[in-house]
């Protein structure tokens, strides 16, 4: 009902939506089912999927445990806030492969904890994923805290609640959905990440509980890239399809 302007805006918008949506449609319709079934049966793929769920999950937990208190403080405001905000947003502007290099400098052999090994370890993968996904957890949670009317906090305090009790009984329940969304975004960011992981832990050594022993696998985006360069588009897309279906499924369950 905006006349020609609405039509024009919709036309421009549809072009973008087609650019975003058509590749997905083409991708899904062009799949070779036998390749997908083959990939889905491969134990290599199973190990890879386990790592792809597990690693980002650890990074999300770390982002929330340390990020929610930070988000709470940012929502309340403090002096020197601008510097902290820049630091939180830093991973958003650092190119992905540079993020991996930063992690190597910070936590590698000559880094803060020389005894900790990050190259090709799950520790390194989780550190890299936490680095790139923490801003999503912090910023989303912060917005959730900021939309809470400060008078609710005042009311809780005047009725006897300490800052911690107010946090526990008012802010956490009211920001719950925001924190959950932040966690899901951080997790999705972790599942997506290619560059930082490719630098720090192209192949990851980790304990695989289903066989009960140490094993080596690749984070899914790395595995798909590797398959693409070594075996071609068809094989890579079969694995990519499984990963997409899995991500979509977990997303639907969480929502």
């Amino acid at each position, binding site marked *: 009902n905006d006349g020609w302007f609405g039509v024009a805006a919709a036309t421009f918008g549809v072009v973008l939506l087609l650019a975003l949506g058509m590749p997905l449609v083409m991708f899904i319709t062009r799949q070779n089912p036998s390749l997908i079934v083959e990939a889905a049966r491969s134990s290599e793929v199973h190990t890879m999927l386990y790592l792809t769920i597990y690693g980002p999950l650890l990074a999300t937990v770390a982002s929330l445990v340390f990020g929610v208190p930070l988000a709470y403080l940012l929502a309340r405001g403090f002096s020197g806030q601008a510097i902290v905000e820049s630091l939180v947003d830093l991973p958003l502007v650092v190119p992905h492969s540079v993020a991996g290099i930063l992690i190597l400098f910070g936590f590698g052999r000559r880094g803060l904890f020389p005894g900790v090994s990050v190259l090709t370890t799950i520790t390194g993968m989780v550190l890299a994923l936490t680095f790139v996904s923490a801003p999503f957890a912090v910023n989303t949670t912060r917005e959730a805290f900021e939309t809470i*009317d400060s*008078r*609710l906090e*005042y009311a809780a*305090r*005047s*009725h006897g609640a*300490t800052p911690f*009790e107010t946090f526990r009984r*008012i802010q956490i329940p009211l920001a719950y959905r925001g924190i959950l969304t932040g966690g899901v975004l951080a997790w999705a960011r972790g599942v997506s990440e290619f560059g930082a992981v490719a630098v720090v832990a192209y192949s990851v050594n980790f304990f695989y509980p289903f066989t009960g022993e140490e094993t080596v696998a690749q984070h899914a985006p790395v595995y798909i890239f590797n398959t693409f360069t070594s075996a071609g588009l068809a094989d890579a897309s079969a694995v990519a399809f499984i990963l997409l279906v899995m991500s979509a499924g977990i997303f639907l369950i969480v929502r």
Partner: protein
Amino acid sequence: MSFELDIGATFTTQGTDPFDLDAEFEVETGETLVVLGPSGSGKTLLLETIAGYHDHSGRVFFDGRDVTDDPPEERDFGFVFQDYALFPHLTVRENVAFGARYHPDALDAESVLADLGVAHLADRWPRTLSGGEAQRVALARSLAIRPEALLLDEPLSALDVPTREVLRDDLQDLIADVTSIYVTHNRTTARALADRIAVMRDGRIVQLGTVEEVFRRPATPFVAWFTGSNCLPATALSDEVVPQPSATHVAIRPEFVELDGAATNASLSATVGRVTPRDGDNRVTLSLGDEVLTAFSSRSLSPGETVAVSLPSDHRWAIEDGRPE
């Protein structure tokens, strides 16, 4: 037990001038002290400073004791907010019981709700309440912790006029015996609820007194204006109308301005401006030279008409120079 408050606080927000709050007063047990002032006068800030919500420089004293660094949960005040600020994720009962965990002597939620006549709302969610219901629940929540005093921040202002009148009557009964500080910009509310009124302007109390004192004997032209009195500069009046030579202004409430009255008092000549009906009579604005005077009259008057005006001597009040303006 009455208590004294002595507040000297400066609030600094980036990009604006610092705001100074400076007030000292005593509240008697069971009394309702109404803080009356325009928006921006700092009356809500005063209440929130008493409750301890804001950082500021300066000190706040309670009965002579410095409470500046006491957090809100250690100050024994209940706070009723303008929009009630009920916890949206808790039922009415849970809202009212919220403070019980921290106050061993708290009243039972059910019984406070029953006392306020809203026991039937206990299982409802705040978003389903009407304005009047929410106001009672907010009051119940604050009364349940048996605070030293209630702080009320214009809890009537969000309501329709007829609802407001009903709830104002109720509130009068409900807080009659509770020590309370009630903030409003509405002089009708102030007059209905107050035992004493503190008129606030620019962060300072410009007059503190009984309703009668503030409405009939305003300390400054501002108080006269804000309480609905007429306030004429002495220079606009003949000497016999000015009660005393030192007066700079003469205040008189509109209901005492007599139109075409007996010439027992000094009569002035004025032109009728606007005639607006109100309950029972008309509100009439009168031009007296450059000054405007308001009167209530049931006489039939037309704009432009010239009338004789008298300001009865026992209702005139002299405002003297040197008082803070």
